[in-house]
C-alpha cells in the first residue's frame, strides 16, 4: 500500500458484482480520504446499492478488492465492519425492543458499555429524550432515521456509509441530517452516501461519482463536474433555466429515460 492509499479510509479497486448473469457493478474503482464526504449518484438500478453492499459485506464481489481503514473486507471482515457504521436503505430492528434497548444492543455489539447517563445523553442528542421506551415502529420516519443514524455512529466509526439517508424525509429533517453529517466529518471521519438528490450532493459532498449501468462515468467535486461539462452540447440541451446545474450534467451523462 503506497502513501496515498494509506491516507484513504476506503479503497475500492476493480470491483465486479454479478447477480447470476447480470453484472450490477462493472470494474468500479474509487477511494475516500479521511474526513471526506463522498457521494455516489446514479439513476435507479445503476449499481449504487450493490457497490455499497459489497463494501458492507452484505454481498460478495466476484472480483476486486475493498479495503476499509486498511482492512480487506474479505480477509478481515470483522475488523473492516468494526471500522464502519452502516445505515441501510430500509432499516429495522426487533419490533419488540424499545429505543433504549436497541441502542444498548448495538452499543454492546460494538463492545461499548452504554451507561444510563450516556444513554440519556445520546437520546437527548437525537431529540428523542422522551422516546426511550417507545418501540421503533411507533416512531415517525424522521425519528426512526435519527435512531438509525445514532446506531450507525454509536462507535465513532472511521467510515460511515449512508444509503439514500434523506429519502422520504421532510426538509427540516433533511437539514438536520446534513448538519449531523457535517458533525461526523468534523470529527475527522469519512462518509460515503448514495443519493438521488443533486441538491444534497452539491450541499453535502466534497466529491461525487456518477454511476450508471454498473460503471463509474464521472468523478470529481460537484463544481468541477459542472465546469468540465458546461460546454457539452448534451448538457446545454437538457438545461432548463439557462444556468448549468449538477442535475443537468447528471441527466446528460445518464440519459433522460426513466429507469425501473
Amino acid at each position, binding site marked *: 500500500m503506497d502513501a496515498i492509499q494509506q491516507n484513504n479510509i476506503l479503497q475500492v479497486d476493480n470491483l465486479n458484482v454479478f447477480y447470476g448473469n447480470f453484472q450490477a457493478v462493472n470494474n468500479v474503482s474509487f477511494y475516500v480520504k479521511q474526513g471526506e464526504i463522498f457521494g455516489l449518484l446514479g439513476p435507479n438500478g445503476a449499481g449504487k446499492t450493490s457497490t455499497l453492499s459489497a463494501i458492507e459485506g452484505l454481498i460478495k464481489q466476484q472480483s476486486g478488492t475493498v479495503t476499509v481503514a486498511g482492512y480487506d473486507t474479505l480477509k478481515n471482515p470483522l475488523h473492516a465492519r468494526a471500522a464502519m457504521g452502516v445505515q441501510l436503505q430500509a432499516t429495522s430492528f426487533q419490533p419488540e425492543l424499545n429505543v433504549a434497548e436497541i441502542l444498548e444492543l448495538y452499543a*454492546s455489539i460494538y*463492545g461499548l458499555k452504554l451507561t444510563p447517563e450516556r444513554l440519556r445523553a445520546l437520546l437527548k442528542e437525537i431529540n428523542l429524550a422522551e422516546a426511550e421506551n417507545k418501540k421503533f415502529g411507533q416512531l415517525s420516519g424522521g425519528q426512526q432515521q435519527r435512531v438509525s443514524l445514532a446506531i450507525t455512529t454509536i462507535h465513532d466509526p*472511521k467510515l460511515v456509509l449512508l444509503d439514500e439517508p434523506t429519502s422520504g424525509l421532510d426538509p427540516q429533517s433533511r437539514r438536520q441530517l446534513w448538519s449531523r453529517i457535517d458533525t461526523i466529518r468534523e470529527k475527522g471521519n469519512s462518509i460515503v452516501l448514495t443519493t438521488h438528490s443533486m441538491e444534497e450532493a452539491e450541499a453535502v459532498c466534497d466529491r461525487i461519482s456518477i454511476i450508471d449501468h454498473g460503471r463509474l462515468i464521472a468523478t470529481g467535486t460537484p463544481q468541477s463536474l459542472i465546469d468540465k461539462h458546461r460546454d457539452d452540447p448534451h448538457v446545454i440541451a437538457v438545461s432548463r433555466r439557462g444556468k448549468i446545474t449538477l442535475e443537468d450534467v447528471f441527466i446528460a451523462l445518464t440519459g433522460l429515460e426513466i429507469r425501473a
Partner: protein
Amino acid sequence: MEITIPKTSAVLKALLKADYITLWRNRRATIMVLIVPMIIVFSWKSLVATAGGAFVLSNAITLGLVAIGLMGYTNSIARDRDKGVFQRLRVSPLPLWTIMASRLIVQLSLILLLTVVVFISGYNFDHITMSIGGYIITFLISIVGGAVYLSLGQVIVGRIQNPETVTSTARLVYFAFIMVGMFGELGVLGDQFKTAVDWTPYGTVKDILAASLEPSKWSSHTTTALLLTLGYTVVFATLGIKWFKWSNK
C-alpha cells in the same frame, strides 16, 4: 490503523439479552405453545393406566417440540428476515453464527421450560411420577428431539422466502405431524401406518422421550430411533443452512 473488534462472548450476551426480551414480550405466543401439551396431559388421563405415564408425557413433549420448532422459531426468523433485522446485524462486527446461536439458545431454553411444564402437569393432573434419573435424561433427550424440529423449521425458512408462505407451510406441516403422528401412534390409522409413523421424526422423538422417562426400558429399537433422530437433524440442518438466505429482497 488499529481497530479492535468486540469479544464474541460479549456480542453473544447482547444478542441473547435482546432475544430473551423478545421472547418475554411475546409471552402470549409462548403460553399458547405450552398450553397444547398441557391439554394433552390433561385429556389423556385415561391412557395413563393403559399405555403408561411415559407414553402420555412423551407425546405431550413431542407435540410441544413440534410447535416450538415449526411455529415459534420458523415464524420469528421469517419475520425478522423480511423486516431487514438480520441485514442490520450483518453489517455489524459480529460472527454470523452468533445471530443464529442466540436464537437457538432461546428456543432450547423454551424446550427446557416446556419439559418442566409437562412434568408438572403430568404430576398435578395425572399423578405421573418418574425416577430422578428419568427426569434428568428426559431434559437432555428433549433437546435432542427439539433439534429435529428446529432444523426442520430451518428447512422451511430456508426453502421459502415469503413470510406468509412460511407461516402457512409451517402450520400445514405442524397439523400433518399432529394428525399423522398422534393418531398414527394410537393405531387409529391402522397397523401399517403405526409402524411407518414409528420411524418418522414424530415417532422417533416420541420413542426416545418415552425411553428416557423410563431408562430401564431403553432397547435396541430406542437406540435405532435415537440414531435416526440424529440423522434427521443432520440432514435437515444441512439443507436448512444450505438454502437459507439472510435477506429475501
